[in-house]
């Protein structure tokens, strides 16, 4: 075991896979010499050479499109988009190819590739660096979407993502890149994709989150506990496939559910969860499934970001209202 933050843990996962599987390739803007603007890939080029860990030209469609080709040819590319706001030039390659090649070729060609990038607010970044658009990716048939909330999960989930034969969008909550440290095994281990994690058991209300919001929910749960409210916290871990089973079982028990995201409000992950609980456990519902999200606005520049970001207080506020409903 070793104390790691999420940056270390992701680096460790890449290191393990680069070492054990010569088909793994890591590239993107500034990931080679510099080790990425967040230093996630630091040291890997020195260890595995500039043919396997390298800087690409500044072109996201180019990065993802070439990764599709590499994957088809038998490599396992793990590419980095420098920020969440710079994935969009690659959208066509993601939707039209990374997600479809397997289906189009009737399973003949697989695209085992990971597209990783930092996302989300809270680090005082300028425009285009702070959004949280996992719902867009979740809506694209043929990809998987994974978001870790701790160093341990980041390592285990990334290893699974690299070993998956499908295209995985791996979103890294950069706000907690270095904010959370924990003991993580230095051995190889993996966490299955598509399975949620019950962070803490509770009886009064289920609160579902992922990424940096899990920690905010934990803070809110403490406030709630002080008021005598017992919160069950679910960390989704995968946005798609979404773990209906865990959600269902929890809401059956609590009868109440709130989803917390830092994404725009409408057409987001919260709505999907609300649809699921309505379809699956309607009769267990004792209050309307609610959402605590950011607004349907563009993430403000740093001075306005506090208005936009979901706070533990706001989560607690909704917990209270839901429990009292």
């Amino acid at each position, binding site marked *: 075991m070793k104390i790691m933050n999420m940056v270390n843990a992701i680096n460790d996962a890449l290191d393990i896979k680069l070492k054990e599987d010569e088909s793994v*390739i890591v590239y993107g803007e500034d990931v080679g010499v510099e080790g990425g603007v967040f230093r996630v890939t630091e040291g890997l080029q020195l260890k595995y050479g500039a*043919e*396997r860990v390298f800087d*690409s*030209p500044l*072109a996201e*469609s*180019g990065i*993802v*499109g*070439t*990764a*599709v*080709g*590499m*994957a*088809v*040819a*038998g*490599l396992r*590319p793990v590419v980095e988009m420098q920020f969440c706001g710079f994935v969009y*030039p690659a959208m*066509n*390659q993601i939707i*039209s*190819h990374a997600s479809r*090649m*397997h*289906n*189009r*070729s*009737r*399973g*003949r*060609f*697989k695209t085992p590739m990971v597209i990783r990038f930092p996302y989300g607010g809270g680090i005082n970044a300028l425009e285009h660096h702070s959004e949280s658009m996992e719902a867009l990716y979740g809506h694209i*048939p*043929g990809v*998987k979407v994974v978001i870790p909330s701790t160093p341990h999960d980041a390592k285990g989930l990334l290893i699974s993502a690299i070993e*998956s*034969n*499908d295209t995985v969008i791996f979103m890294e909550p950069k706000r907690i890149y270095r904010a959370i440290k924990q003991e993580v095994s230095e051995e190889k281990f993996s966490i299955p994709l*598509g399975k949620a994690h019950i962070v803490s058991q509770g009886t009064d209300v289920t609160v579902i989150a992922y990424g940096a919001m899990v920690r905010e929910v934990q803070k809110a749960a403490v406030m709630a506990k002080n008021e005598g409210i017992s919160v069950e916290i679910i960390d989704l871990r995968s946005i*798609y*496939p*979404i773990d*209906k*089973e865990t959600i269902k079982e929890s809401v059956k028990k609590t009868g109440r559910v709130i989803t917390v995201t830092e994404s725009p409000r409408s057409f987001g992950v919260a709505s999907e969860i609300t649809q699921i609980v309505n379809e699956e456990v309607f009769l267990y519902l004792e209050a309307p499934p609610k959402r605590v999200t950011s607004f349907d606005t563009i993430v403000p520049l740093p001075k306005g970001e506090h208005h936009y970001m979901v706070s533990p207080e706001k989560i607690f506020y909704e917990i209270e209202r839901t429990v009292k409903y």
Partner: protein
Amino acid sequence: MFNTYNPLNNSMFRIMDNFGKIINTDYFPDLLDEEILKAYHDMLFARTADLMTVSYQRQGRIYTYPPNYGQEAIAGAAGKIIQDDDWLVPAFREMGAYLAKGATLKEIFLVFMGYEDGSKFEYAKNMLPTSVPIASQLLHAVGIGYEIKLRKKNQAVFTFVGDGGTSEGDFHEALNFAGVWKVPVIFIVQNNQYGISTPFRVQTASDGIAIKSIAYGIKGIQVDGNDFFAMFAALKNASQYAKSGNGPVLIEAVTYRKGPHTTSDDPTKYRTKEEETEWDEKDPLKRLKAFLNDKKLIDEKAEEILIEQYIAEIDRQFSEAENYPKYPLNDVFDYLYDEMPEDLKEQKREHEKFLKWKENLKM
């Protein structure tokens, strides 16, 4: 070759004139007479298949189809150069290359009949399915090229795109990455003068396409795409050049789409009879046939019989495709992921429940 036929010199690489006369012996390919005849026959087959596919479409037996008519020399020559181990990353208007690579007509028909199964192309080694989003496939070719280079394999990647496709950002990114990575990729631009109804002069103000190679520090050559020999020689040189580790080559094959864009298109709306006639004179099959005729290699009688055989063969494959089993519900779900997620299974089960209900409804 790529220094002599530098696109900056404004010289289009040609070997044979419009009448089948060899005008450039320096580069005349080292091919046996039979090999040339065989190439001609392959192009004839492709043309016959193409024309028949259009007529199947007119009969309502397949959906939209993009004819290759008039562009056969490009794919024909490529078919001779691309080796088994080489990769083909196609666009959609190079049937001859598909066939040479081992794709069957039946599979091609299946695609245009609306079955994904066709796109598997199981007998075609190292060939990707058709890519509909224009120019996006070029990046896949570059990625494959990277794998070849990394693993030091003796292969090249051949990839196709149209003149319209050169306007897309992905064209730029692909050629640029290929130049930086020095990967063995041969980019074949079929400049057939139109992207649907849009003429080439609306796509770019540059002097042709080959010249764009300069922007990427790679080799480029403009070739008479209706000249089988020129295409053959250019592709052969490009393949050797790329496989020797020199990096990518951009080949602009100047040609003309004699047919419509697809079977739903009407070219009379946007181009003149005169223009079409002018290009008729440069027809690739006509020219190769004239060459073979001069060499007394054409036997009209035998050709007629051959064409009849072709027709029979094409018809046979077409009816095989037409008799393809129904599209089962499973096929909608089975290929999305390597392992089907629970939720997709549930969506399928739910739908089956509905179908059962519907059966009862009818009774």
